[in-house]
């Protein structure tokens, strides 16, 4: 056990005992001077006790929820933190009385477990603003671009009255799109110099965006990226219409005009002057051309996000329901993993492992056995649903 782990153990055992959850919740909810501290502690409970996460999330069901949970994702260095900083500044100007939360995730080292949480460096102007609560999280080995407790932290931000919560993911590659299950609206931030149009054709990240930002618009290649992205989105749109078409009837092409199931597809409609904003129809993500560091394009982006908050509310309710289902599945898997790991470490099970090595037991049999053993060792009272 490393020294840091030893420190961690003593830290853990003391703090957990002293933290009376209900007390923290009511203190965080109050407008008193200790509310920030209590909220921060509550967030630590959410992130530090993964085995209690399901229980904590269930207990937080009745807390007020943020009106909008906005995800900001993209590659490392694409400008997510700077965009978040400027977007929050813009929202603060538009709604001086609303509270905003920021959850900023940075990676944990897979080698040492340590982390350098540096997203705040770009957001220090909000540090002393009582209406903005910023929390940095380390991913702690969780793949997918978020941290395991991120959802819990968002709940606490709802509890303390945050109207909008912005979740900034770790710098992602192509497949870390967990943010799509955790946000109402996902902004994908792209910057020039990250590859050609083939990168835009790949599955994963590019499918997760509800809104795209071409950031660093002052860089020379930004216009090229904007064009490639526009082409990609137009291709996606035509593919979507084409796939929705009855199979016997091909998407008709009359000279310069494509005809889809809802009539002609006007290729020229809203074709951008490439400044600031591109949009074709309601189902195609909007594209914003921004230089976040210079606050360019941010006003337009904020306005569009707000407009979407109003127009998509019903759709988001459905999305949140789906997210709840995913949350349950996730909590169950986490619990199973925990119990199976514990069962494997129990005395007596060495024989089983020896059996596997000797080829006397099949892996399937052992897996079956462990799952039965883990499930039968139920730790909580059976679930009852009140019929009334």
């Amino acid at each position, binding site marked *: 056990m*490393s*020294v*840091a*782990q*030893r*420190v*961690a*153990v*003593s*830290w*853990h055992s*003391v*703090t957990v005992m002293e933290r009376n959850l209900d007390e923290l919740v009511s203190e965080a909810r109050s407008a008193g*001077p*200790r509310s*920030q*501290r209590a909220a*921060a*502690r509550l*967030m*630590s409970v959410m*992130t*530090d006790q*993964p*085995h209690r996460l399901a229980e904590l999330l269930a207990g937080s069901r009745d807390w007020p929820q943020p009106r909008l949970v906005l995800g900001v994702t993209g590659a490392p260095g694409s400008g997510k933190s700077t965009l978040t900083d400027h977007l929050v500044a813009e929202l603060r100007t538009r709604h001086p009385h609303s509270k905003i939360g920021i959850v900023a995730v940075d990676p*944990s*080292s897979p080698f*040492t*477990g*340590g*982390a*350098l*949480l*540096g997203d*705040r*460096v770009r957001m*220090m102007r909000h*540090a*002393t603003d009582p209406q903005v*609560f*910023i*929390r*940095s999280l*380390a991913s*702690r080995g969780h793949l997918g671009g978020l941290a395991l407790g991120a959802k819990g932290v968002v709940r606490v931000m709802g509890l303390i009255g945050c109207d909008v919560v912005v979740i900034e993911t770790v710098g992602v590659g192509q497949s870390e799109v967990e943010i799509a299950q955790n946000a109402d609206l996902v902004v994908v931030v792209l910057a020039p110099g990250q590859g050609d149009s083939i990168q835009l054709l790949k599955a994963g990240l590019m499918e997760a965006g509800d809104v795209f930002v071409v950031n660093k618009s002052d860089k020379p290649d930004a216009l090229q990226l904007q064009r490639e992205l526009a082409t990609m989105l137009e291709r996606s749109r035509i593919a979507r219409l084409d796939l929705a078409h009855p199979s016997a009837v091909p998407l008709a092409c009359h000279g310069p005009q494509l005809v889809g199931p809802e009539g002609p597809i006007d290729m020229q409609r809203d074709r951008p002057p490439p400044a600031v904003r591109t949009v074709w129809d309601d189902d195609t993500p909007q594209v914003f051309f921004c230089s976040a560091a210079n606050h360019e394009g941010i006003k337009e982006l904020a306005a569009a996000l707000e407009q979407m908050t109003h127009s998509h509310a019903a759709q988001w309710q459905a999305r949140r329901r789906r997210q709840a289902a995913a949350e349950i599945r996730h909590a169950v898997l986490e619990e199973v993993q*925990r119990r199976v*790991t514990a069962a494997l470490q129990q005395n007596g099970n060495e024989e089983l492992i020896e059996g596997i090595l000797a080829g006397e037991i099949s892996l399937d049999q052992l897996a079956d056995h462990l799952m039965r053993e883990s499930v039968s060792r139920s730790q909580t009272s059976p679930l009852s649903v009140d019929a009334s």
Partner: protein
Amino acid sequence: MEQPPKPRLLIGKPGLDGHDRGAKYVAQILRDAGFEVVYTGIRRSPEQIVDTAIQEDVAAIGLSLLSGAHNALFGRVLELLRSRGAEDILVFGGGTIPPKDVPRLKEMGVAAVFTPGTPARQIVETIEGLLVQRQTA
């Protein structure tokens, strides 16, 4: 495998000097020692640092200073922590601090002062020792 969470630390530079080599180096060695380190960057006010420490629920704050204003700025951070009911957050410091000022800083409540040339291992072990001490006190 379930691992207990590690204490979170904050490394910040209050005041007006922009020499962040030391702060970044200490942030890195603490990161490599397995801590989660919130880094605030240069030229921060004591208010920004204390508000950040509270929101981030850190166990300790490390202040790096090369401007000579350590007595005033460390004192202000400690004062703000007390006024926010967060005096349990440890404060340590480093930078070009004359040895004659160290006793006074410790008297004010700074838990440790690391001057240039302090070995990395000593910094990590001192901080770990202080955290264990604080938790079992």
